[in-house]
């Protein structure tokens, strides 16, 4: 689904965003991106969205080479990628319903199917009773569920989440993560950048750890810290 080959991104003066990064993320996988603040997680996600251009290396998303993708085709790429962010990125002047509907309007979905799909997805995330509210009228956890609903309403093959639980209390966070897991079960590839140690440790999914832009760990069923793994192995021997 996502292929990075020797990708390097250096920000303007000479801040490392990503350095010689190579990895493959397969269809249907659920992957955690971990690493200290400033290690390059958001940079990676922005590269996949073609919000940023790499300085060198090759990025493929769903078989398409982003380096040769025309500017005009970028919106098409993004329609096939659902996005969830720490700050929700909801349109403040639109109701919950219209925020989700916007993602469908953008792809030219017929009015009738919009009217069917939006309530469907909102009930999936448990917000059937908040459809007419504006983002500022609902809690952070609810806003994040709206943004998950918007990301998934098109049933994109790929969903990226950048610290989706960063602004949310642990219990609500569990709910959001469960949503992401459910989405993953439908076959959607899910990539989650997070600092949520407990969550990563509990879920035991594939973990990619970054340090100063480099991939330092790629583990099938990893925990949040490398140390945990070493300690486990030490404990075993």
């Amino acid at each position, binding site marked *: 689904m996502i292929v990075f080959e020797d990708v390097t991104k250096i920000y303007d003066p000479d801040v490392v965003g990503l350095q010689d990064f190579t990895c493959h993320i397969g269809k249907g996988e659920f992957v955690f991106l971990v690493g200290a603040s400033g290690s390059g997680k958001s940079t990676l996600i922005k590269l996949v*969205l073609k919000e940023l251009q790499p300085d060198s290396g090759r990025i493929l998303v769903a078989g398409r080479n982003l380096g040769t993708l025309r500017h005009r085709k970028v*919106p098409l790429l993004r329609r096939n990628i659902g996005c969830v962010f720490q700050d929700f*990125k*909801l*349109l403040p002047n639109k109701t919950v319903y219209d925020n989700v509907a*916007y993602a469908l309007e*953008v*792809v030219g979905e017929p009015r009738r199917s919009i009217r069917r799909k939006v309530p469907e997805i909102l009930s999936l995330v448990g917000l059937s009773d908040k459809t007419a509210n504006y983002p500022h009228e609902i809690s952070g956890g609810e806003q994040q569920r709206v943004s998950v609903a918007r990301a998934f309403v098109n049933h994109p093959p790929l969903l990226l989440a950048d610290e989706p639980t960063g602004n949310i209390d642990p219990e609500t966070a569990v709910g959001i993560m469960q949503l992401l897991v459910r989405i993953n079960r439908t076959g959607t590839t899910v990539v989650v950048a997070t600092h949520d140690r407990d969550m990563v440790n509990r879920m035991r999914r594939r973990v990619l750890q970054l340090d100063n832009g480099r991939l330092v760990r790629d583990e099938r069923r990893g925990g949040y810290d490398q140390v945990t793994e070493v300690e486990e192995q030490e404990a075993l021997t």
Partner: protein
Amino acid sequence: MRLGFFLSEAFGSMRRNWVMAMAAVITVFISTAILGAVLVTRDNLNQGATSLKNRVLIEVFIKDGATDEQKATLEQRIQSIPEIKSYQYISKDEALRRFRKRFGERIVQNLPINPLPASYEIQVKDANQVDGVARQFFDDPAVDNDPGTHNGVKYARETVRKMLGTINLVGIGMWIATGVFALAAVLLISTTVRLSIFARRREVEIMRLVGATNWFIRWPFVLEGFITGLIGAVVAAGFVWLCNWALANWLESSDIDFLQIRVFSMWWQSGSWPAGLLPTLAVLGAALGALGSMVALRRYLKT
């Protein structure tokens, strides 16, 4: 294109940001009203210049004692001058009739003979050529000159030419003013729109992340600019027309009779440019608004 969706987006945003929308409407109103005023004034000036030019007559008086041959030569001369638009022969009888009409019957009654000379009334094509054309008759033997003078040829010399010069100058000034105000309008509108888009740049960013194409993002803004421009311009057209109408009426009812103002057509002026006040300003305002939006959006829509 999903016109319904884009329209509701545009109106929704105008309702939410109504202060900004009002500012934009007022901006368009002021600039198009000024343009409208310029149009009306220019039109009246042109009108004035035309009627003034038409009034530039050369009168060539004919000696009572001129022979038929001399008269024929004079007429041939008139016909041979290309700068002359038209001419009319005024016989002695016709001159007397006009005189009578203007000054009344009584003065004429006691005259034993008709003292008024026959004449040609000549109109030239261009008021600036009056002098040159008039000169050609100065020494014609058929012309009723007092000895040593050229008083048999009468034409408005300096005054008219000065007035025409002034009108030309004011006309040029008006054109320049039109250009300057049009430019000011574009700048004002694009600044206003830029401010409102700057306030919404986060929205634009989100739209792009969700996969909206540039035109999908642009349409509501462009429509908003279009509607804003249209409203401002229509109000301006009404305002200018009303002022024009009121002034014309006031002048007509007052005793200032050397000044006359024409009411510029609101709807359509067939065959002339620009068309009526409303269509001209509306097209202009709407185009300015839409263009302002596009220009202001440009930097937020670079991929």
